Protein backbone atom coordinates (compact mmCIF):
# COMPACT_ATOMS: atom_id res chain seq x y z
CA UNK A 1 0.00 0.00 0.00
CA UNK A 2 1.53 3.29 -1.04
CA UNK A 3 0.99 6.41 0.96
CA UNK A 4 0.55 8.76 -1.98
CA UNK A 5 3.77 10.16 -3.35
CA UNK A 6 5.26 11.43 -0.08
CA UNK A 7 6.84 8.17 1.02
CA UNK A 8 8.38 7.66 -2.39
CA UNK A 9 9.82 11.15 -2.27
CA UNK A 10 11.42 10.43 1.10
CA UNK A 11 12.95 7.21 -0.19
CA UNK A 12 14.19 9.04 -3.26
CA UNK A 13 15.82 11.68 -1.08
CA UNK A 14 17.35 9.01 1.13
CA UNK A 15 18.78 7.19 -1.87
CA UNK A 16 20.15 10.48 -3.23
CA UNK A 17 21.73 11.25 0.12
CA UNK A 18 23.28 7.79 0.23
CA UNK A 19 24.77 8.27 -3.22
CA UNK A 20 26.12 11.70 -2.30
CA UNK A 21 27.61 10.36 0.95
CA UNK A 22 30.11 8.05 -0.68
CA UNK A 23 32.23 9.85 -3.23
CA UNK A 24 33.10 6.55 -4.90
CA UNK A 25 29.58 5.95 -6.17
CA UNK A 26 30.39 7.50 -9.52
CA UNK A 27 29.26 5.88 -12.74
CA UNK A 28 32.74 5.90 -14.19
CA UNK A 29 34.02 3.77 -11.30
CA UNK A 30 31.48 0.96 -11.66
CA UNK A 31 33.96 -1.47 -13.13
CA UNK A 32 36.50 -1.07 -10.33
CA UNK A 33 33.76 -1.26 -7.70
CA UNK A 34 32.45 -4.48 -9.23
CA UNK A 35 35.93 -6.02 -9.07
CA UNK A 36 36.22 -4.93 -5.43
CA UNK A 37 32.83 -6.53 -4.68
CA UNK A 38 33.92 -9.86 -6.16
CA UNK A 39 37.21 -9.77 -4.23
CA UNK A 40 35.42 -8.99 -0.96
CA UNK A 41 32.93 -11.78 -1.58
CA UNK A 42 35.80 -14.23 -2.10
CA UNK A 43 37.50 -13.18 1.12
CA UNK A 44 34.25 -13.40 3.10
CA UNK A 45 33.61 -16.83 1.65
CA UNK A 46 37.07 -17.99 2.72
CA UNK A 47 36.35 -16.72 6.26
CA UNK A 48 33.20 -18.83 6.48
CA UNK A 49 30.19 -16.93 5.20
CA UNK A 50 27.80 -18.79 2.91
CA UNK A 51 25.63 -15.94 1.71
CA UNK A 52 25.55 -12.14 1.74
CA UNK A 53 23.09 -9.32 1.86
CA UNK A 54 23.62 -7.11 -1.18
CA UNK A 55 23.72 -3.95 0.89
CA UNK A 56 26.30 -5.40 3.27
CA UNK A 57 28.51 -6.56 0.40
CA UNK A 58 28.31 -3.19 -1.34
CA UNK A 59 29.06 -1.35 1.89
CA UNK A 60 32.11 -3.49 2.61
CA UNK A 61 33.47 -3.15 -0.93
CA UNK A 62 33.05 0.64 -0.74
CA UNK A 63 34.91 0.61 2.57
CA UNK A 64 37.90 -1.32 1.21
CA UNK A 65 38.04 1.01 -1.78
CA UNK A 66 38.17 3.87 0.71
CA UNK A 67 40.84 1.98 2.68
CA UNK A 68 43.12 1.59 -0.35
CA UNK A 69 42.57 5.20 -1.39
CA UNK A 70 43.28 6.52 2.09
CA UNK A 71 46.35 4.34 2.49
CA UNK A 72 47.77 5.64 -0.77
CA UNK A 73 46.98 9.21 0.19
CA UNK A 74 48.65 8.85 3.59
CA UNK A 75 51.72 7.13 2.17
CA UNK A 76 52.04 9.84 -0.48
CA UNK A 77 51.71 12.51 2.20
CA UNK A 78 54.41 10.87 4.31
CA UNK A 79 56.71 10.70 1.29
CA UNK A 80 56.12 14.38 0.45
CA UNK A 81 56.76 15.28 4.08
CA UNK A 82 60.18 13.63 3.79
CA UNK A 83 60.89 15.58 0.62
CA UNK A 84 60.32 12.68 -1.76
CA UNK A 85 58.00 12.20 -4.69
CA UNK A 86 57.99 8.40 -4.65
CA UNK A 87 56.78 6.56 -1.60
CA UNK A 88 58.72 3.71 -0.04
CA UNK A 89 57.86 0.83 2.27
CA UNK A 90 58.25 2.90 5.43
CA UNK A 91 55.72 5.45 4.21
CA UNK A 92 53.27 2.63 3.59
CA UNK A 93 53.90 1.13 7.03
CA UNK A 94 53.33 4.49 8.70
CA UNK A 95 50.16 4.83 6.69
CA UNK A 96 49.02 1.43 7.93
CA UNK A 97 49.75 2.52 11.48
CA UNK A 98 47.60 5.61 11.04
CA UNK A 99 44.68 3.64 9.69
CA UNK A 100 44.80 1.15 12.53
CA UNK A 101 45.54 3.77 15.16
CA UNK A 102 42.29 2.97 16.92
CA UNK A 103 43.56 -0.46 17.84
CA UNK A 104 46.87 0.71 19.25
CA UNK A 105 50.50 0.52 18.17
CA UNK A 106 52.21 -2.69 19.18
CA UNK A 107 55.93 -2.12 19.57
CA UNK A 108 55.88 1.43 18.28
CA UNK A 109 57.05 2.95 21.56
CA UNK A 110 60.34 1.06 21.46
CA UNK A 111 62.92 3.42 19.98
CA UNK A 112 65.59 0.84 19.23
CA UNK A 113 63.27 -1.51 17.42
CA UNK A 114 63.20 -1.53 13.67
CA UNK A 115 59.94 -0.67 11.98
CA UNK A 116 59.90 -4.15 10.44
CA UNK A 117 59.26 -5.59 13.89
CA UNK A 118 56.18 -3.51 14.52
CA UNK A 119 52.97 -5.27 15.37
CA UNK A 120 51.35 -4.35 12.11
CA UNK A 121 54.08 -5.79 9.92
CA UNK A 122 54.29 -8.88 12.10
CA UNK A 123 50.54 -9.40 11.74
CA UNK A 124 50.77 -9.14 7.97
CA UNK A 125 53.66 -11.61 7.91
CA UNK A 126 51.62 -14.06 10.01
CA UNK A 127 48.58 -13.53 7.78
CA UNK A 128 50.57 -14.33 4.65
CA UNK A 129 52.32 -17.35 6.14
CA UNK A 130 49.27 -18.87 7.85
CA UNK A 131 46.56 -18.80 5.22
CA UNK A 132 46.54 -20.18 1.68
CA UNK A 133 46.48 -17.62 -1.04
CA UNK A 134 43.18 -17.30 -2.89
CA UNK A 135 43.74 -15.72 -6.30
CA UNK A 136 41.10 -13.48 -7.83
CA UNK A 137 38.37 -15.35 -9.69
CA UNK A 138 38.64 -13.48 -12.99
CA UNK A 139 41.33 -12.22 -15.30
CA UNK A 140 41.47 -8.46 -14.78
CA UNK A 141 42.62 -6.33 -17.72
CA UNK A 142 44.63 -3.18 -17.23
CA UNK A 143 42.25 -0.30 -16.65
CA UNK A 144 41.33 2.45 -17.25
CA UNK A 145 42.01 2.27 -20.96
CA UNK A 146 43.55 5.53 -22.13
CA UNK A 147 42.42 6.55 -25.59
CA UNK A 148 44.90 8.18 -27.91
CA UNK A 149 43.84 11.71 -28.68
CA UNK A 150 44.76 12.83 -32.14
CA UNK A 151 44.72 16.57 -32.55
CA UNK A 152 43.99 18.33 -35.81
CA UNK A 153 47.67 19.16 -36.13
CA UNK A 154 49.50 22.43 -36.29
CA UNK A 155 50.58 24.27 -39.44
CA UNK A 156 54.14 23.13 -38.87
CA UNK A 157 53.15 19.47 -38.43
CA UNK A 158 51.02 19.49 -41.56
CA UNK A 159 53.64 21.33 -43.55
CA UNK A 160 51.21 24.05 -44.47
CA UNK A 161 51.99 27.68 -44.77
CA UNK A 162 49.96 29.78 -42.32
CA UNK A 163 48.03 32.46 -44.15
CA UNK A 164 49.86 35.54 -43.03
CA UNK A 165 52.71 36.43 -40.74
CA UNK A 166 50.37 37.15 -37.86
CA UNK A 167 49.54 33.43 -37.53
CA UNK A 168 52.26 31.38 -35.77
CA UNK A 169 53.00 27.97 -37.23
CA UNK A 170 52.47 26.12 -33.96
CA UNK A 171 48.75 26.92 -33.94
CA UNK A 172 46.29 24.24 -35.17
CA UNK A 173 45.82 24.31 -38.92
CA UNK A 174 42.65 25.66 -40.51
CA UNK A 175 40.00 23.10 -41.51
CA UNK A 176 40.08 21.96 -45.15
CA UNK A 177 38.24 23.75 -47.98
CA UNK A 178 35.51 21.13 -48.04
CA UNK A 179 34.24 22.52 -44.77
CA UNK A 180 33.55 25.98 -46.14
CA UNK A 181 33.19 25.50 -49.95
CA UNK A 182 29.72 24.49 -51.22
CA UNK A 183 29.39 21.26 -53.19
CA UNK A 184 27.61 21.21 -56.58
CA UNK A 185 23.94 20.48 -56.10
CA UNK A 186 22.24 17.79 -58.17
CA UNK A 187 19.09 18.95 -59.97
CA UNK A 188 16.09 16.65 -59.74
CA UNK A 189 13.17 16.80 -62.20
CA UNK A 190 11.61 19.78 -63.96
CA UNK A 191 11.47 23.15 -62.30
CA UNK A 192 8.47 25.41 -62.64
CA UNK A 193 8.39 29.14 -62.01
CA UNK A 194 6.82 28.73 -58.58
CA UNK A 195 9.39 26.09 -57.62
CA UNK A 196 12.39 28.22 -58.60
CA UNK A 197 12.27 30.26 -55.43
CA UNK A 198 11.74 27.13 -53.40
CA UNK A 199 14.72 25.41 -54.99
CA UNK A 200 16.92 28.45 -54.51
CA UNK A 201 16.09 28.61 -50.82
CA UNK A 202 16.71 24.91 -50.40
CA UNK A 203 20.06 25.22 -52.18
CA UNK A 204 21.06 28.09 -49.88
CA UNK A 205 20.12 26.02 -46.86
CA UNK A 206 22.12 23.07 -48.11
CA UNK A 207 25.05 25.36 -48.85
CA UNK A 208 25.19 26.31 -45.21
CA UNK A 209 24.30 22.94 -43.75
CA UNK A 210 26.61 20.65 -45.67
CA UNK A 211 29.92 22.47 -44.98
CA UNK A 212 28.92 22.77 -41.34
CA UNK A 213 28.14 19.08 -41.28
CA UNK A 214 31.48 18.27 -42.90
CA UNK A 215 33.32 20.38 -40.37
CA UNK A 216 31.45 18.77 -37.49
CA UNK A 217 32.25 15.33 -38.81
CA UNK A 218 35.89 16.17 -39.24
CA UNK A 219 36.13 17.66 -35.77
CA UNK A 220 34.36 14.69 -34.25
CA UNK A 221 36.78 12.34 -36.00
CA UNK A 222 39.98 14.20 -35.13
CA UNK A 223 39.27 15.90 -31.84
CA UNK A 224 36.84 13.92 -29.78
CA UNK A 225 36.87 10.33 -30.91
CA UNK A 226 40.61 9.76 -31.29
CA UNK A 227 40.37 5.95 -31.29
CA UNK A 228 43.58 4.63 -32.83
CA UNK A 229 42.16 1.19 -33.59
CA UNK A 230 39.31 2.56 -35.70
CA UNK A 231 40.07 2.38 -39.41
CA UNK A 232 37.73 3.61 -42.09
CA UNK A 233 36.96 6.35 -44.58
CA UNK A 234 35.03 9.50 -43.94
CA UNK A 235 31.81 7.93 -45.22
CA UNK A 236 32.05 5.07 -42.79
CA UNK A 237 32.71 7.45 -39.95
CA UNK A 238 29.87 9.70 -41.02
CA UNK A 239 27.54 6.72 -40.95
CA UNK A 240 28.77 5.67 -37.55
CA UNK A 241 28.49 9.24 -36.28
CA UNK A 242 25.00 9.57 -37.69
CA UNK A 243 23.95 6.37 -35.97
CA UNK A 244 25.05 7.70 -32.63
CA UNK A 245 24.37 11.42 -32.98
CA UNK A 246 21.27 12.67 -34.86
CA UNK A 247 22.88 16.09 -35.32
CA UNK A 248 25.60 14.55 -37.45
CA UNK A 249 23.18 12.74 -39.73
CA UNK A 250 23.51 13.20 -43.49
CA UNK A 251 21.42 16.09 -44.83
CA UNK A 252 18.07 15.36 -46.43
CA UNK A 253 17.65 15.43 -50.20
CA UNK A 254 15.30 17.83 -51.92
CA UNK A 255 11.71 16.78 -51.55
CA UNK A 256 12.38 14.34 -48.71
CA UNK A 257 10.98 16.68 -46.13
CA UNK A 258 8.66 19.61 -46.52
CA UNK A 259 10.37 22.84 -45.66
CA UNK A 260 8.42 25.92 -44.78
CA UNK A 261 9.17 28.65 -47.30
CA UNK A 262 9.16 32.12 -45.80
CA UNK A 263 8.11 34.96 -48.18
CA UNK A 264 11.01 36.91 -49.61
CA UNK A 265 10.70 40.62 -48.82
CA UNK A 266 10.37 42.80 -51.86
CA UNK A 267 12.99 45.43 -52.63
Amino acid at each position, binding site marked *: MKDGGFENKKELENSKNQSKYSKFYIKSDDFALAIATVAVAQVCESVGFQ*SFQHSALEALSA*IIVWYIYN*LGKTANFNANLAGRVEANVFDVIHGLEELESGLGFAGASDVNRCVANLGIVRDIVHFVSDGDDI*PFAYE*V*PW*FPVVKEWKGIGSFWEKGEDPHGEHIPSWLPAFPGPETYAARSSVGNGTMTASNEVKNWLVRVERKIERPLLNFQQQFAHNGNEGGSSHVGGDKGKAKEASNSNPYLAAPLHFGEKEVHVSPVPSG
Partner: protein
Amino acid sequence: MNHNPQSSDGKHDDDSALSDFLASLMDYAPTIPDELVEHYLAKSGFQCPDVRLIRLIAVATQKFVAEVASDALQHCKARQAAVVKDKREKQQKDKRLILTMDDLSKSLREYGVNVKHQEYFADSPSTGIDPASREE
Protein backbone atom coordinates in the same frame (compact mmCIF):
# COMPACT_ATOMS: atom_id res chain seq x y z
CA MET B 1 78.75 1.88 24.24
CA ASN B 2 78.01 -1.79 24.02
CA HIS B 3 74.54 -1.40 22.53
CA ASN B 4 75.70 -0.07 19.20
CA PRO B 5 77.12 -3.20 17.52
CA GLN B 6 74.24 -5.27 18.90
CA SER B 7 71.58 -2.83 17.75
CA SER B 8 73.20 -2.42 14.35
CA ASP B 9 73.24 -6.23 13.92
CA GLY B 10 69.64 -6.36 15.04
CA LYS B 11 68.69 -3.63 12.61
CA HIS B 12 70.49 -5.40 9.82
CA ASP B 13 68.54 -8.58 10.59
CA ASP B 14 65.29 -6.63 10.67
CA ASP B 15 66.05 -4.96 7.36
CA SER B 16 66.85 -8.27 5.74
CA ALA B 17 63.68 -9.76 7.23
CA LEU B 18 61.64 -6.96 5.74
CA SER B 19 63.26 -7.27 2.33
CA ASP B 20 62.82 -11.07 2.43
CA PHE B 21 59.18 -10.64 3.30
CA LEU B 22 58.64 -8.19 0.45
CA ALA B 23 60.34 -10.62 -1.94
CA SER B 24 58.11 -13.45 -0.72
CA LEU B 25 55.05 -11.33 -1.48
CA MET B 26 55.75 -11.80 -5.19
CA ASP B 27 55.02 -15.52 -4.77
CA TYR B 28 51.81 -14.84 -2.88
CA ALA B 29 48.67 -14.12 -4.93
CA PRO B 30 46.38 -11.78 -2.96
CA THR B 31 42.66 -11.99 -3.58
CA ILE B 32 42.51 -8.28 -4.31
CA PRO B 33 44.04 -7.90 -7.78
CA ASP B 34 47.02 -5.61 -8.35
CA GLU B 35 45.20 -3.71 -11.10
CA LEU B 36 42.46 -2.62 -8.70
CA VAL B 37 44.93 -1.50 -6.05
CA GLU B 38 47.01 0.40 -8.61
CA HIS B 39 43.90 2.12 -9.96
CA TYR B 40 42.90 3.54 -6.58
CA LEU B 41 46.47 4.33 -5.57
CA ALA B 42 46.89 6.30 -8.80
CA LYS B 43 43.70 8.18 -7.93
CA SER B 44 45.10 9.11 -4.55
CA GLY B 45 48.40 10.36 -6.00
CA PHE B 46 50.55 7.52 -4.74
CA GLN B 47 53.62 7.02 -6.90
CA CYS B 48 55.88 4.02 -6.68
CA PRO B 49 57.25 1.82 -9.46
CA ASP B 50 57.87 -1.04 -7.01
CA VAL B 51 55.32 -3.82 -7.47
CA ARG B 52 56.14 -5.22 -4.04
CA LEU B 53 54.57 -2.22 -2.36
CA ILE B 54 51.40 -2.71 -4.39
CA ARG B 55 51.33 -6.31 -3.17
CA LEU B 56 51.93 -5.17 0.40
CA ILE B 57 48.96 -2.81 0.23
CA ALA B 58 46.81 -5.51 -1.38
CA VAL B 59 47.72 -7.98 1.37
CA ALA B 60 47.11 -5.38 4.09
CA THR B 61 43.67 -4.63 2.62
CA GLN B 62 42.86 -8.33 2.37
CA LYS B 63 43.88 -8.77 6.00
CA PHE B 64 41.60 -5.89 6.99
CA VAL B 65 38.65 -7.41 5.15
CA ALA B 66 39.35 -10.84 6.66
CA GLU B 67 39.43 -9.37 10.16
CA VAL B 68 36.20 -7.45 9.67
CA ALA B 69 34.53 -10.50 8.14
CA SER B 70 35.66 -12.80 10.93
CA ASP B 71 34.38 -10.34 13.57
CA ALA B 72 31.06 -10.19 11.73
CA LEU B 73 31.02 -13.99 11.65
CA GLN B 74 31.49 -14.10 15.42
CA HIS B 75 28.58 -11.69 15.85
CA CYS B 76 26.46 -13.80 13.51
CA LYS B 77 27.22 -17.03 15.35
CA ALA B 78 26.64 -15.40 18.75
CA ARG B 79 23.26 -14.15 17.53
CA GLN B 80 22.27 -17.58 16.26
CA ALA B 81 23.32 -19.23 19.51
CA ALA B 82 21.23 -16.76 21.49
CA VAL B 83 18.08 -17.60 19.51
CA VAL B 84 15.65 -19.73 21.53
CA LYS B 85 15.64 -23.22 20.03
CA ASP B 86 11.91 -23.86 19.76
CA LYS B 87 11.76 -25.97 16.64
CA ARG B 88 14.26 -28.12 14.81
CA GLU B 89 13.29 -26.52 11.50
CA LYS B 90 14.28 -23.14 12.76
CA GLN B 91 17.64 -24.53 13.86
CA GLN B 92 18.31 -26.00 10.44
CA LYS B 93 17.34 -22.77 8.76
CA ASP B 94 19.61 -20.73 11.03
CA LYS B 95 22.66 -22.82 10.16
CA ARG B 96 23.26 -20.75 7.04
CA LEU B 97 25.72 -17.97 7.79
CA ILE B 98 24.71 -14.74 6.10
CA LEU B 99 26.68 -11.48 6.15
CA THR B 100 24.12 -8.90 7.28
CA MET B 101 24.36 -5.18 7.70
CA ASP B 102 23.77 -5.48 11.45
CA ASP B 103 26.76 -7.76 12.02
CA LEU B 104 28.89 -5.74 9.63
CA SER B 105 28.13 -2.43 11.34
CA LYS B 106 28.90 -3.97 14.76
CA SER B 107 32.27 -5.30 13.62
CA LEU B 108 33.20 -2.11 11.75
CA ARG B 109 32.46 0.03 14.80
CA GLU B 110 35.57 -1.43 16.47
CA TYR B 111 37.64 -0.18 13.54
CA GLY B 112 36.23 3.31 13.76
CA VAL B 113 33.96 3.03 10.73
CA ASN B 114 30.35 3.98 11.39
CA VAL B 115 28.00 2.29 8.97
CA LYS B 116 24.39 2.91 9.72
CA HIS B 117 21.76 0.91 7.94
CA GLN B 118 18.35 2.44 7.40
CA GLU B 119 15.92 1.16 9.97
CA TYR B 120 13.37 -0.23 7.57
CA PHE B 121 11.92 0.13 4.13
CA ALA B 122 8.17 -0.04 4.51
CA ASP B 123 7.58 -1.59 1.13
CA SER B 124 7.17 -5.30 1.82
CA PRO B 125 5.19 -7.42 4.28
CA SER B 126 8.39 -8.91 5.73
CA THR B 127 9.60 -5.56 7.10
CA GLY B 128 10.74 -5.73 10.68
CA ILE B 129 11.18 -9.52 10.77
CA ASP B 130 14.45 -10.93 12.13
CA PRO B 131 17.07 -10.79 9.33
CA ALA B 132 18.13 -14.42 9.80
CA SER B 133 14.77 -15.65 8.61
CA ARG B 134 14.73 -13.41 5.59
CA GLU B 135 17.44 -14.18 3.04
CA GLU B 136 18.44 -12.05 0.09
